[in-house]
């Protein structure tokens, strides 16, 4: 089962190595990963996608919580959240294919962000399903290259992932 997990960590030297090392050292998978500072520049947010049954996920969350620089862990499974990925696609665009290409881009509310004589770069954001679908449609037109971010996620409504009071950890 696939889970999206967000982790607030101290924004410091080596923290990503410690988190990713925990996954590799204990035989857990990371399918995608995204890391950036939060509004509080001393805190970074890692969002990752992993797979495993309930027991494995429970261990992943506990082992993450045990890491000293980890402030907070949230498994978004079934919490009612939004999830997005961003993909840039470089597609062959000649006179013959441009019409169909623009149609597909419109339908998926994508943006053309670079236009060359023989290629376009298209930007699309969305859930995993939407991105897979547009890539499928673009394939026959000739995809030259794609670059895809890891998934990011957020609770719906006013619920947030925030640093608890007194974040100092003992173990």
């Amino acid at each position, binding site marked *: 089962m696939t889970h999206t997990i967000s982790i607030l960590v101290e924004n410091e*030297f*080596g923290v990503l*190595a*410690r988190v990713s*090392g*925990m996954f590799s*050292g204990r035989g857990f998978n990371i399918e995608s990963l995204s890391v950036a500072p939060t509004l509080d520049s001393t805190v970074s947010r890692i969002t990752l996608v992993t797979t495993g049954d309930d*027991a494995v996920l*429970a*261990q992943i969350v*506990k*082992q993450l*919580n*045990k890491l*000293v*620089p980890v402030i907070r862990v949230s498994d978004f499974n079934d919490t009612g959240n939004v999830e997005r990925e961003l993909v840039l696609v470089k597609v062959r665009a000649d006179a013959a294919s441009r019409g169909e290409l623009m149609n597909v881009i419109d339908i998926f509310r994508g943006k053309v962000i670079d236009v060359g004589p023989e290629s376009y770069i298209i930007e699309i954001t969305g859930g995993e399903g939407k991105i897979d679908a547009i890539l499928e449609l673009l394939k026959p037109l000739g995809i030259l290259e794609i670059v895809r971010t890891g998934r990011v996620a957020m609770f719906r409504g006013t619920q947030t992932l925030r640093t608890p009071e007194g974040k100092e950890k*003992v*173990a």
Partner: protein
Amino acid sequence: MNNHNENRAPKQTLTGAELIVRLLERQGTRIVAGIPGGAALPLYDALGKSASIRHVLARHEQGAGFIAQGMARVSGQPQVCIATSGPGATNILTAVADAKLDSIPLVCITAQVPLALIGTDAFQEVDTYGLSIPITKRNYLVRSAAELLRVIPEAFRLAASGRPGPVLIDIPKCVQNEAIEVGEWPAPGRRAPVPLPATEDIERAAAMIDAAAQPILYIGGGTIASGAGAAIRTFADRNGIPVVSTLMGLGAMDADHPLFLGMLGMHGARYTNEALDACDLLIAVGVRFDDRATGKVAAFCPHAKVIHIDIDPSEHGKIKHAHLPLTGDVAAVLDAVVPRTRARPRAGWRAEIARLRATCPLEMPGGDDARAPYGLIRAVARAVGPDAIVATDVGQHQMWAAQAYPFSRPRQWLTSGGLGTMGFGLPAAIGAALAAPERPVILFTGDGSILMNIQELATAVEQGVSVKIILMNNQSLGLVHQQQRMFYAGQLFGADLSVAPDFSALARAFGLHAWDLGDCADPEAAEQMLTTALAAPGSVLIHCPVDYAEHVLPMVPPGAANVDAIDHTASTTVASTKETRHAALA
């Protein structure tokens, strides 16, 4: 809380190295073990001026790490080891990993090349931070002298708090040399308090214990770390609950207590593993369901509900489902749970245990002959008495000692349980002797293990410590040999140590006195020699020839259920003869 009068001082200018030494002094550190080197020279210069810290010069950085571990295992307090950059750091990492697996509070300080040289493949540069990530609770690469004021107390706090463990601080040479003005000192880092589980969970635990007909207490290293020995004994006595221990938990309970069933698992007695098979409630305290303890997990305590008390919640459900996981300091949790239970003798269950003990006892052949493994261990224990600290290396001698030594108190037993590091014993015993100079210190070791840190004999002599080394020499890597004979069709390969030094002469070369039990014609002479040697001043080595064909039994084949152990009766069919062995070696 900060005591401002104590922590505020007139402003003074100190180098990073002087700061480190002052912060260690403020932590109460009295002994550090280490080896200097280029990048550590500023630190050593400052250390040499300390009036209160004694430096123990090891002869290999791994020795320094294990000397600090020996001190930590005896005292329960974080202890400090030091290595220089590069090879100094890589050498000490085995001792750090060992501390992680056994949850020993250790603060390891490594020197690093100057910040400007990091990443340039400088002389004696290695990525110590990166190498130490998976084997530490927390690690630091310090980038300024000012950071030391936060990092060093935090390292001590983290090493001692929650589930104890090693913390590594990598300090570049330029940071050691950087001078800063210090006006206020941080409070020393101390163990942080741990909350109790919710009252309803404590009451549920008490109810489960009261409802159980055949409960067993399964105790481990966490009971030692928590100082729960007294709580375990009270609980067992009051509620009539038999106790089994992991390798790491030995000493929490008196070995001769009628409710103590000894070590469980791979080399546990048959009756111990049979009792676990029959129990209906497993009260797991400060344990992690290690594979050497559980055997095949699906067949471990198959009829039991499980209460799992541990300070580290990630241990709950990691290996075996806990019907009731309780997170907290195990001594405090027991103190909360036990008064809520009904005191009862459980005569029926105890009678069943007595029956198991009688029908499938722990056999100790040669138990009355000091020239045989079990007899030797019992004779040493008689000679040194209950005050002694017992360290071991790793292998057959370690398992024999775990089975046969009459432990009577926590922190009496120092052994590398999780990592199983050969070479642990000698430096750990030196550390024990430094931390508890008033107690006799015994080291059981083997001819394989002792050579892995033999150089620390020089440290023992230089420091004037008294370590009595019982070297059980079977001219082989005995546990490897044993498994090759039992599980690899008797093909003996890579485990023969028959071309070996004269260990007595080697000990004398380092300045120790040495005796050889091989010179004794009968058990009386052997016992007499042991008594004389153990009473001699200073460190001594007692060489004890052991037949290479001796097995540690019972033995659960790796991956099998604990109740399917091979015992003395069964093992005669797999034990090879001397002739077979010599043919194999020819």
